[in-house]
């Protein structure tokens, strides 16, 4: 007790003395903007991330703050309204003058914020798995790119399960569309005929799944093994899995791998009929490591509810925030350009074991995990890869295959390796 207080005090003193040098660079308190919807349709997912950020900030302050300053979290509510995201980002950067923003969930909200962040040279940490095909100088993507989630999951289907026909079911918006485009090309490259790929898009919150499920079942009529790749988002999953269960589709008959179904989503229904279906993420709450146990305990204590689950985007914020803290300490300032340079090559241990590394394309190297749904709403991790570096531009679409992103040496996020020119410095939005 006394000892730990002593170390904390000495650490604080150490930081203070180190901070003196850069006191003119970092004005106290250091402000961290949190741009997550607290109301509207996305509040369901994003509120958890806001709480995660508050917890991380609190932990960092207890550990002595940053550069001798307290960290202050500035929380705003963009209310799941995409134009409002841009407005609130501008407010954070110009009115509250935050040093960094952690936020966004949907791709469209990120696209809404991008022009503002780039115009004002802000810094955004984006924690959710997304469709790739983007690289911004001012954004660090701590969630999975398609090659860190979708491609390994399809590999698992092809290699481990021997799936011969694929049903790509998704909600009709940009993440499923782009991911499915990439996957279709990838499957064709792997010798799956175009006729053996069934694609369907449904609206947000879709509830009438009977026809689609029987369409999927009909695929198996030629004796092929059918697998479903689901990018179905949010609530609609409830109806989809209920229909699967009532049609008696067992994971052994038609396995479903989902990219948007995690612990949080599974708490919305009874999983006893879904045992054996799959999900691919970079993190599962059931990961058996000391770091994860500690993180879960801290989360339960912070939120005051032992039944709350943790999920992949929370881990992304955990890694992103800690990397940012380390980068700020390395740079000795919160200045965006200095911090960005210090971010490259930053390493931080994953909660699932191994080490995440920030690459020059602003994406992380992270392991890919595949989990089977258990009856208690958690996942059995049945496959864990080595760290996979995130790829901003997919190798499986001809237009993107020639592009690469390197903000450190090339200073360009959209560099055409064939013509050896930078297509554009700003990102595409």
């Amino acid at each position, binding site marked *: 007790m006394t000892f730990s207080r002593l170390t904390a005090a000495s650490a604080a003193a150490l930081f203070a003395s180190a901070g003196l040098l850069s006191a003119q660079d970092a004005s106290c308190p250091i402000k961290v903007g949190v741009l997550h919807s*607290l*109301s509207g349709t996305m509040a369901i997912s994003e509120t958890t991330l806001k709480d995660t950020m508050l917890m991380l900030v609190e932990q960092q302050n207890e550990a002595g703050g940053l550069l001798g300053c307290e960290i202050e979290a500035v*929380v*705003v*509510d963009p*209310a799941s*309204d*995409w*134009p*409002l995201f*841009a*407005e*609130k980002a*501008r*407010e954070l950067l*110009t*009115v509250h003058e935050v040093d960094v923003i952690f936020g966004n969930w949907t*791709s*469209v909200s990120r*696209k*809404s914020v*991008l*022009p*503002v962040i780039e*115009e004002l040279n802000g810094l955004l940490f984006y924690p959710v798995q997304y469709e790739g*095909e*983007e690289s911004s100088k001012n954004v660090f993507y701590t969630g999975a790119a398609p090659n860190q989630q979708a491609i390994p999951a399809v590999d698992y289907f092809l290699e481990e399960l021997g799936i011969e026909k694929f049903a790509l079911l998704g909600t*009709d*918006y*940009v993440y499923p*569309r*782009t991911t*499915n*485009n990439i996957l279709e090309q990838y499957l064709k490259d792997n010798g799956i005929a175009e006729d053996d790929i069934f694609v369907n*898009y449904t*609206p947000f919150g879709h509830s009438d799944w009977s026809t689609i499920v029987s369409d999927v079942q009909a695929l198996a009529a030629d004796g092929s093994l059918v697998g479903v790749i689901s990018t179905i988002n949010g609530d609609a999953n409830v109806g989809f899995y209920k229909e699967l269960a009532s049609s008696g589709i067992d994971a052994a008959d038609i396995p479903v791998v989902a990219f948007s179904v995690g612990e949080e989503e599974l708490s919305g229904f009874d999983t006893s009929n879904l045992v054996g279906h799959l999900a691919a993420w970079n993190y599962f709450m059931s990961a058996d490591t000391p770091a994860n146990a500690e993180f879960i305990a801290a989360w339960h204590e912070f939120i005051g509810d032992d039944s709350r689950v943790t999920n992949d985007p929370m881990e992304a914020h955990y890694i992103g925030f800690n990397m940012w803290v380390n980068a700020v300490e390395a740079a000795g300032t919160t200045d965006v350009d200095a911090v960005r340079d210090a971010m490259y090559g930053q390493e931080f241990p994953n909660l699932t074991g191994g080490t995440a590394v920030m690459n020059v394309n602003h994406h992380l190297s992270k392991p890919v995990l595949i989990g089977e749904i258990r009856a208690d709403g958690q996942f059995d991790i049945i496959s864990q890869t080595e760290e996979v570096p995130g790829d901003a531009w997919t190798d499986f*679409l001809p*237009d*993107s295959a020639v592009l690469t992103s390197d903000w450190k040496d090339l200073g360009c996020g959209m560099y055409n390796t064939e*013509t050896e*020119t*930078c*297509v*554009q410095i*700003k990102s*595409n*939005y």
Partner: protein
Amino acid sequence: MRALVRSNPSILWFLGLLAAFCLGVTFLAEATGTGAISTSFVKTLGKTLCLCLVAIAMDVVWGYCGILSLGHMAFFGLGGYAIGMWLMYARTEIIVSASLASAAIPPTPQEVEDAIASQIFGVVGASEFPWLWAFADSLVLQLAMVVLVPGLLALVFGWLAFRSRVTGVYLSILTQAMTLALSLYLFQNASGLRGNNGLSGLQNIPGLGGVPQSVVSIAFFWVSAVALALGYLLFAWVVSGKMGSVVRGIRDNEARVRFLGYHVEGFKLFVFTLTAIVAGLAGALYYPQAGIINPAEIAPIASIYLAVWVAIGGRGRLYGAVIGAASVSLLSSWFTGGGAPDIDLGFYEIQWTDWWLVLLGLSFVAVTLYAPKGIGGLIDLVAERRAPSRSRDLGPDASALRKTEAAE
């Protein structure tokens, strides 16, 4: 003009207040004044002016003509899409030509177009321009689209609806179905307007890359203010004089006006289409300030909010619509933005981000029940006290409220 002002004394008041407000904002803005008002707030105010404009249009079609359209935000959104297409195209064209110019061989026109298309549509996994974008390279043609697309849609829809004498609640629901169908259509990636992502980065005006947003925002603010002023004048003219009387007559008793020999459908169609065009223009000014337009903006709820603003502000009064739109939308962003302090009741803490919508919903019921004239009614009370007028106000009269809306 003088006659118009005489019949509508509110015009002078309105224009005067609007001018004073604009000058005040200009003196406090970052680019042109002290900087007391942040750029993001200038944008909010500019957007609010556009909302006021579409609210006036809504007031004319509902408060004066008695058509409760639950689809006017569709026209607003279409205007935004029309201008957004040009903004995206022109901006991307600049980027692409700069990038292709450095190649060893000059690009063919086809290559330039393909590169623009894959930049714009890469995000939705396509790389070709749909036919919708045929005119996107021309500002003039797209500006024409801002007027033509909402206008034509309103004309066709209105003609179909009014011709078959769909009125009252039925019409409201049909207009709602129209906006729902449109938003569902646009939600599809295959619609050619980038699906759920919509058009983004609209605040970056092509060719003005070097101009800071603080200047752009104040410019748009002024343009929006001028548009609002002109819109106010236009609609004040429409609802005054003989045509205004006929329009109000249609609201109060459609059958009687028809028996008097007026072509009711023609008047309704004119008002419906005109207000749709103005809504489209307002949208074209709104979305470059908002920065992004997507199908959620056209969802039925948006149009219902529009009706709510007008009802709270006071129907049948142009200034009522302005007051309603400005106050409710600004209050809304103040409450949801966490600006309002939480109230601690001891046993429960009221957080306005959670409870604002409950308050809005209930206050809306209260206004409908107890103050059908809305906030504008208060102004009438004051005006009445200062200069009692012999003529009745132009709002729906008691009998109109009670009987003929129930024709269906």
